């Protein structure tokens, strides 16, 4: 038998239906690949026994010609998603030993459709990071390397386990979450496809909360079709999340291959930032040419408040995180460090349980929300957020979708940016605006940097118009013909 892990999600789905192999065989192939890839540190928990049981159940259904949209397909789950009875820590020390007695809505939807869980994927602690170096379980390594080098490269973050695992073929596709770029930037860094849907498209119930007004779940997958299949299963209304939106989930796969004739693609001039490498700019131009050749009309647009998006984000996100993370108190779950009284216990527990980046953000958030500063910081940031959303609304009177680079550079080496939080934050310059405005965005691999690392282009859509995003992303994918794969150096 050929290597089953080479198939895409759609390919494996079709082959399982034709009974070319069983879900158990496919699942075992992935469990084998995971076992041989410890060097990537992509998984923090592997649920082999459960995976085989789920696969056997799927095989029974498939044998009878039954089964859901993802029947028998093995997936990786970001550790931010609560999985019933399976260790869920958000890769934080403070959630040591936490086994949720409930299942997140997004993963429930995947199991409803027949998917198989391989295990939990590494991420930045509480999803706070852009390189997957803040995880309590250590950094994730990108399967990609610079040409002729053995330097360990970051897989992006916070969904670095998801992007690394998909790129290294350690799962067919993975769940991820995106608060400021945490799906799209890791996808760009690993040559994979990642979509953050419109805020409210996926239920946040059972996802460890970071910044509730920005957090959204989405998939990281090998290609645009696989991302479309995944999102259709993940999305949907959930009465347990009051911000989830009650509207039907379209068949995103049906949007692929539709013509771009008459479609207007906006190019925001403010995304041409100072110091951006020439190769990023050149790739962007290529993307423009590809979409033009596919029949789209290119329109110059302006998003004047773009430069204020990151500072706005670094008020809103820490403020909401300081509030959300107040629950980790050593009483109800996770780590507890005893103290001389209850306050001492809280303080010692949280000092021991939170890593440096999480502590930094909780402190910033506490400060900007503290008495006397709320108006100057949080209220001001929420006002600027309105202006950022207005910029997009104005741009969408002239175009249907926006094309931008996903990240201002290719992936960097592990440890290269950890000393300077600000330079790390700047990674999200093109992605964070989308979260602030609640819009959908997708990253598609479009080329390689001069040193051989993947680069991505981002498409930004109108609210709940993921179908147009998939349509354009597919055209971009067809034109880019990105077929490069990392050399397999990690296999033990």
């Amino acid at each position: 038998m050929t290597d089953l892990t080479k198939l895409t999600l759609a390919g494996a789905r079709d082959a399982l239906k034709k009974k070319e192999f069983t879900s158990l065989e496919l699942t075992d192939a992935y469990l084998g690949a995971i076992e041989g890839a410890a060097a990537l540190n992509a998984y923090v928990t592997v649920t082999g026994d459960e995976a085989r049981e789920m696969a056997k159940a799927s095989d029974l259904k498939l044998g009878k010609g039954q089964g859901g949209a993802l029947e028998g397909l093995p997936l990786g789950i970001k550790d931010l998603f609560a999985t019933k009875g399976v260790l869920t820590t958000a890769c934080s020390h403070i959630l040591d030993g936490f086994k949720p007695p409930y299942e997140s809505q997004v993963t429930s939807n995947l199991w409803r459709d027949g998917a198989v869980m391989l295990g939990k994927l590494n991420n930045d602690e509480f999803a706070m990071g852009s390189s997957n170096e803040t995880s309590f379980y250590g950094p994730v390594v990108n399967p990609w390397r610079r040409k002729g080098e053995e330097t360990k490269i970051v897989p992006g973050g916070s969904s670095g386990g998801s992007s690394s695992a998909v790129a290294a073929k350690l799962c067919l596709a993975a769940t991820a979450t995106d608060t400021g770029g945490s799906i799209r930037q890791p996808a760009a860094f690993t040559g994979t496809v990642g979509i953050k849907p419109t805020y409210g498209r996926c239920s946040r119930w059972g996802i460890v909360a970071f910044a509730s007004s920005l957090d959204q779940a989405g998939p990281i997958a090998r290609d645009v079709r696989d991302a479309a299949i995944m999102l259709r299963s993940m999305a949907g209304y959930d009465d347990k999340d009051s911000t989830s939106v009650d509207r039907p989930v379209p068949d995103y796969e049906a949007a692929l291959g539709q013509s771009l004739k008459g479609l207007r693609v906006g190019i925001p001039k403010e995304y041409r930032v100072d110091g951006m490498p020439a190769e990023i700019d050149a790739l962007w131009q290529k993307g423009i040419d590809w979409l033009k050749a596919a029949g789209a009309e290119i329109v110059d647009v302006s998003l004047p408040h773009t430069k204020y998006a990151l500072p706005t984000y670094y008020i809103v996100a820490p403020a909401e995180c300081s509030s959300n993370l107040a629950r980790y108190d050593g009483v109800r779950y996770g780590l507890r460090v005893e103290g001389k009284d209850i306050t001492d216990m809280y303080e010692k527990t949280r000092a021991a349980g939170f890593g440096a980046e999480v502590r930094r953000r909780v402190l910033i958030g506490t400060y900007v929300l503290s008495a006397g500063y709320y108006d100057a910081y949080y209220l001001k940031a929420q006002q600027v957020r309105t202006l950022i959303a207005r910029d997009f609304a104005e741009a969408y009177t002239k175009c249907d979708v926006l094309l931008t680079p996903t990240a201002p550079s290719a992936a960097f080496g592990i440890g290269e940016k950890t000393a300077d939080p600000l330079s790390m934050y700047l990674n999200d310059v093109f992605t964070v605006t989308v979260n602030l405005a609640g819009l959908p965005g997708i990253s598609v691999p479009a080329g390689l940097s001069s040193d051989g690392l993947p680069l991505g282009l981002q498409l930004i859509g109108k609210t709940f118009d993921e179908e147009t995003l998939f349509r354009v992303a597919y055209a971009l994918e067809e034109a880019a013909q990105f077929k490069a794969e990392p050399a397999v150096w990690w296999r033990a």
Partner: protein
Amino acid sequence: MSVDQNTVRHIARLARIAVRDDELPALAGELNTILDWVEQLGEVDTKGVEPMTSAVAMSMKMRDDVVTAGNLQKEVTENAPRAEDGFYVVPRVVE
């Protein structure tokens, strides 16, 4: 606005995170770098601009005021570092 070491100690206290005195200078430096950077929002004229309260325009759904889950004392306390008889155990709070 910049924070000094006393302010860092105060916000760490508010956040219930123990911080050692020897960590204060470095933390104050890091926080000031970030706070100085976000200061640039001061350039933006936000007079009369409504603060965003919802990322996507939607009205909150109403639901019936009924109990939908309950009797989960075991599940609710089973992850606690210390629990007894279905209750969380914490250090003495009232003398």
